[in-house]
């Protein structure tokens, strides 16, 4: 098992869409390495030919009836939106180009 560096933590933070300040990066690096040390215990378990358990439920193929239900009204959909025009959620422009607003 390996340890992570501050650069690694920055990499995983950026994959998770976080920007860390110096103190937090240092702190996370130390703490996550402690956690990784603790996790070494997993290697002691013989899991050769053991299937992974991926969920808590014992149900398979649960279907709902194929019927149309009332959707949420727009007002309800957008009541928590940070920015919208009543029909769409608005975010800053993604593609640069001619202003057609």
């Amino acid at each position, binding site marked *: 098992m390996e340890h992570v560096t501050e650069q690694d933590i920055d990499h995983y933070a950026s994959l998770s869409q976080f920007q860390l300040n110096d103190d937090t990066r240092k702190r996370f690096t130390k703490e996550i390495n402690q956690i990784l040390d603790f996790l070494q215990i997993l290697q002691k378990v013989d*899991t050769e030919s053991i299937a992974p358990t991926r969920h808590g439920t014992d149900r398979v193929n649960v279907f709902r009836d194929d019927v149309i239900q009332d959707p949420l009204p727009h007002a309800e959909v957008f009541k928590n939106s*940070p920015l919208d025009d009543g029909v769409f*959620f608005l975010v800053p422009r993604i593609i640069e180009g001619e202003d057609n607003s």
Partner: protein
Amino acid sequence: MKTPWYEKTAKEIRDAVHQGEASALDIVNSFIEHADAVDGTVGAYTQRWSETARTAAQRIDEKIRKGLPAGALAGVPVALKESICTSEGKTTGASKMLADYRSPFDATAVTRLQQADAVFLGKVNMDELGLGSSTETSALQRTTNPWAPDRVPGGSSGGSAAAVASGTCALALGTDTGSSIRQPASFCGCIGFKPTYGRISRLGIIGIASSLDHVGPLARTVEDTALALNVLCGEDKGDPTSSDRPVPDFTRSLGRDIRGLRIGVPKEYLASDLDAEVRQYVEKALDQFRNAGAEIVSISLPCTGYDAAAYTVISTAEMSAGLARLDGVRYGARHPEAKSVPDVYVMSKSAGLGTEVQRRIILGTYFLSGKNRQDYFVKAQQVRTVVKKDFQNAFEQCDIIAGATTATAAFPFGSKSDNPLEMYACDQFTVAANLASHPALSIPCGKTAAGLPIGLHLQARSYDEETLLGAAFYYEQHRGFEMGFPSIL
């Protein structure tokens, strides 16, 4: 002096309302006034819904006056964890990210309680998004342990446990991904019940790790727990992971003869670093079971120790995927200075989510990246299979597995905040029930010399909540002490 309503059980309240001996409004007012008096000290409530609670109580009284049937929890005051969606008030998950979030619908568990004529007094505090064991990571406020104001109430359902223990509600709803109902119940001296995975719908719960998340009740008596489970359990078409197995009347398992019941005590639990007083009271509880004719069986759970490691990997990996939805695009706090879409994500998440949430998401991302996926995540899922098999083997030798809920009683504020591993160790006896999906509860079994509650942890086979409740009820009736109410109140 007559016992005030807020000291009565949910069963007593329900019966009094049904029989017209008391009005739901008087009962609800008693709880509201008590909360006015003590919750300033405890800090369990993040939202108080006193006016809507009174209106709901009046509607129940009206039903009774008209001779209409009233529900199984008529007039019973309930507190809801901040992570449970309600169309009333806000649903914040105790996170800055969701500080203004208003759910468009009620969680199924909430609807079921409402249909049973329970009355909601408001929402209660928790660790941010359920990530924590002390309620210290809440972005909203501090909640203290009602038995000792310098101690944490546990977490993440710390507000639920503190409200039940301080008598500011008769029942509370919590959620439990690794310990979050049972550990705070243990710290606050009440009962916390995590049913079998799927028994209670999770529709409308702010989920963190889908394969491990459960909803469950916290209560002051086993009978109240059974009443709540009767209302809460059952299939929900809106939650495909909810179980379609028939739900028994759980109150019928109370009063069962426990002679011949086999109670397994894992040797690994007693070998661990249990606090001396905790060990003493757990052993005393086992003696009481033995004296009542139960058979105490020494068993082995070789998975003890690595279950917590597997839990750490699986839970953080699932969190890192699931919590990516909190990005400030469709809901949640978008950073006002974000000028681009990447800015919206990074600035909103970095400002809106607390340190513990960020740490676990980054850790989970690590476990799911590249080769780590096989080395950690799949490995942990394989270990989860081993844990399940260990419990299956153990439950061939016994009907109940008993031990301490936590190795120590409630700890002081700040004493573990700087050490995530120590904080995670709070879950060491409880996470296995989440990994293996079987039901488990914490019930008070004593108090330390300093007056802090100690919890006995009982586990049973999947879908065998009845044996669990039967054993807990017997113990409660014969344990030889009343938990009572904290003197600071």
